[in-house]
């Protein structure tokens, strides 16, 4: 065994983090956001937006925006998307402020209700106007929640799709597949949140992780750009002996993947593999080979890999792709947007001095939740909505305004760059001189007992010299 005295340094392009904001809208969105924050997320800011003050107050997000102070008066939108939209219109200034200075905005919402369905499309529109790349992560309601709610959700999804660069859509009905039938209902919802959290975090990581082979916005967009398409998303992580295989299996198990069957129809697939310093080329090779079995020969694979000291022993795989809704590959989706925003490229990004614009914690007036008995406001919720057609409704003045915001946004500061990698001690890479081989059992299922691969000869494992 040879030990290299000099360790290879990781690429130093760590400095320029791309400002990413995660915006959650409505009750379901806030739940998902809490989960994201609890699961641990660095290198992105979170913004919580809701009409319901009570749920906003309990959110862990640092930056909160209350919608429709006059329209809903601190209560929810009551399942009415129109009311949610009105509330968002009323607070559009605040939203715009909250969205400023981000290159990429991820919008999480549960569609079907009031705030999520009503406000999310408008927020996506404002985000695009602010010059950011917009990805939507939305859930569709369970089918038992009723046809009305489902119809609202579909409508909202259509509108959101017009504004966002891509929408990743989780159907709650599909979630049922990953939840054991005996699990409690809270677990079913929790697993939906977990899935959203996982996908949001992995997309942030894909973009932010210092890559050996880096994946940029352009790759991400290329993989996701399908109008009304079905998004394929899979994430797997493992630290077992056979981690490359296990991580991929887990990624393909994701309900949005349909066990990898869907991949064969995809035209482009983005694959990102991240691991600790111990990740080997052969592991990546094995993984890609295995993935190759699930994809078509014509499929373009956008491949990225990153070494992240924090990953430790783990290896993670993220697979992102999308299918055209009608089998038609339409790549011009972006141009049909009401506001043509150039797709930013991460390579333009330069570290810049910090300005004070960024995310000063909002001083939202937070009324004590039980202050007003909700019954007083019941009539207000039933008020006929102020007649204004649903979006797209962008006035010219807004556009001008937004472009200035966008310009401002582009020269946005990079808030903090404190990569943990730098703190890690330079690790010596261990080069295996004699590959551990399993000989005849190379292709069979390994016999792993008590953490040892027993197919490897005993004398090799115990380091006993036989000759």
């Amino acid at each position, binding site marked *: 065994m040879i030990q290299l005295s000099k360790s290879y340094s990781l690429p130093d392009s760590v400095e320029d983090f791309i400002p990413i904001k995660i915006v959650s809208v409505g009750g379901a969105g806030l739940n998902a956001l809490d989960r994201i924050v609890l699961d641990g997320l660095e290198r992105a800011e979170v913004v919580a937006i809701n009409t319901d003050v009570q749920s906003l107050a309990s959110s862990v997000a640092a930056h909160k925006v209350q919608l429709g102070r006059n329209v809903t008066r601190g209560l929810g939108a009551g399942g009415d998307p129109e009311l949610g939209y009105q509330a968002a219109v009323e607070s559009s200034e605040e939203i715009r402020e909250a969205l400023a200075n981000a290159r990429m905005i991820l919008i999480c919402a549960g569609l079907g209700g009031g705030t999520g369905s009503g406000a999310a499309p408008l927020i996506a529109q404002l985000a695009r106007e602010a010059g950011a790349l917009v990805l939507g992560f939305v859930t569709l309601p369970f089918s038992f929640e009723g046809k009305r709610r489902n119809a609202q959700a579909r409508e909202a999804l259509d509108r959101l799709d017009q504004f966002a660069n891509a929408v990743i859509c989780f159907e709650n009905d599909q979630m049922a597949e990953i939840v054991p039938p005996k699990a409690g209902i809270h677990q079913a919802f929790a697993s939906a949140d977990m899935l959203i959290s996982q996908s949001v975090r992995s997309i942030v990581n894909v973009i932010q992780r210092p890559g050996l082979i880096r994946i940029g916005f352009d790759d991400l967009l290329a993989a996701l750009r399908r109008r009304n398409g079905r998004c394929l998303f899979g994430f797997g992580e493992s630290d077992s002996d056979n981690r490359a295989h296990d991580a991929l299996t887990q990624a393909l198990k994701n309900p949005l993947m349909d066990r990898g069957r869907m991949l064969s129809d995809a035209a482009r697939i983005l694959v990102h593999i991240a691991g600790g310093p111990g990740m080997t080329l052969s592991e990546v090779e094995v993984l890609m080979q295995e993935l190759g079995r699930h994809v078509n020969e014509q499929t373009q694979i956008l491949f990225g890999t990153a070494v992240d000291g924090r990953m430790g022993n783990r290896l993670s795989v993220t697979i992102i792709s999308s299918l055209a809704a009608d089998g038609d590959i339409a790549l011009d989706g972006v141009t049909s947007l009401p506001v043509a925003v150039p797709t930013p490229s991460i390579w333009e990004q330069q570290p810049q001095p910090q300005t004070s614009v960024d995310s000063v914690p909002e001083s939202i007036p937070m009324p004590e939740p039980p202050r007003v008995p909700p019954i007083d406001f019941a009539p207000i919720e039933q008020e006929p909505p102020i007649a204004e057609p649903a979006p797209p409704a962008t006035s010219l003045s807004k556009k001008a305004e937004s472009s200035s915001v966008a310009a401002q946004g582009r020269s946005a500061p990079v808030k903090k760059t404190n990569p943990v990698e730098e703190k890690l001690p330079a690790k010596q890479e261990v080069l295996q001189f004699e590959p551990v*081989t399993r000989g*005849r059992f190379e292709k069979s299922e390994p016999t792993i007992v008590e953490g040892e691969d027993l197919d490897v*000869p005993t*004398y090799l494992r115990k380091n006993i010299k036989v000759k």
Partner: protein
Amino acid sequence: MASNNLMVGLEIGTSKICVVVGESRTDGTVKILGVGQAPSRGVRKGEIVDFETAMKCVHEAVVDAEQKSDVMIRSVYVAVAGSHLQSFNNRGCVMLPEDRDEIDEQDVEDVKSNAREVSIPAQNAFLHSIIQHYHVDGQDGVLNPIGMSGQKLEADFHIIHGMRTRIQNSIRCVKELPLEVEDVVFSALASAQVVLTKNQKDLGALVIDMGGGTTDYVLYADGAIRQSGCLAIGGDHITNDISMGLRIPMARAEKLKIEEGSCILGNCLPGDMILLKDDSGFAGKEIERETLNTIIHLRLRETLELLKRRLDEESYLNYLGGGIFITGGCSLLNGLDYLAGEIFELPAQVVHAHTTSGLTSAVENPQFSTAIGLIKYAQAVQRDRRPRRFGRIFGKFFSGIR
């Protein structure tokens, strides 16, 4: 000859496929009519990995057995192994109604199905549920409770289960030939039927069936099966170790293991060399005997120690009055009984089938233990089944098998 007296055992092993044709006699003995075998390909660690190839090999072995025994084989008992097999003990319990205190057959059926109501993983299927003992009102060790008085009847079962799809692979392989599958049997359980006497089961005995791809074990205490399982390590691993350690081809390593191998260390003089003659595609080589033995010894010691650790999880090892019985092809390796005795600190011996008549000399070989054991199993099952005629492939209770 009535055809229902004819029983055929088929073992799809990792190194060879073995078919034994036997005939059940009215006096309860078994006569072996013929043994067919074929080298096995497409099987690794007791499980089929190349379906087509394995099927051809099974076909060869069946044809061989048909020729040698001069009978037409229609249905077989199949032995299964593989690391996916798992086992545990479970107790079922029924309370008799207030107005009745004599235990009848229905109560026994109830307690059996009650013991069976345990959750195993969804993809698994029951392979065996074997009765250990009944308890009547807390009285231990009841063998047959029917007719006894009591309010509470409990039954201890040993349950063996495995992955449904993998078990079905073996079944499918036979059915495609096409042959009927009468039953599937855990291979060590079959071996135990033939290498152990009733007396040895009562005393307590451990059967280790070391085959080409797997090491299966069954532990008996007080006449009932207590522990069983399968380790996916076998003679193939030794061959592989030799091939890699001495850098010789697999085929030569296998031959060397069989002809010269031993797992006893310190038994040969330094400089004692084995000459491998040159062969087409293989230049001759000299190998130190001690090196060869060290490789074998390390692997077998590790395997047996692993087995001991597994069995130590429950304390039945202390109840083994009968000792350790090693069978299977790998047990032919020189010194294995000695090594096992040293590791388990119990008397150990290599055994083979000995309770048959007919072609005795041909089958007195540990390699055939499982296939002959299948016949013994079949005999016990048929005796038990005849009055009722229920026969499902999965999930069965036979009081005849212990």
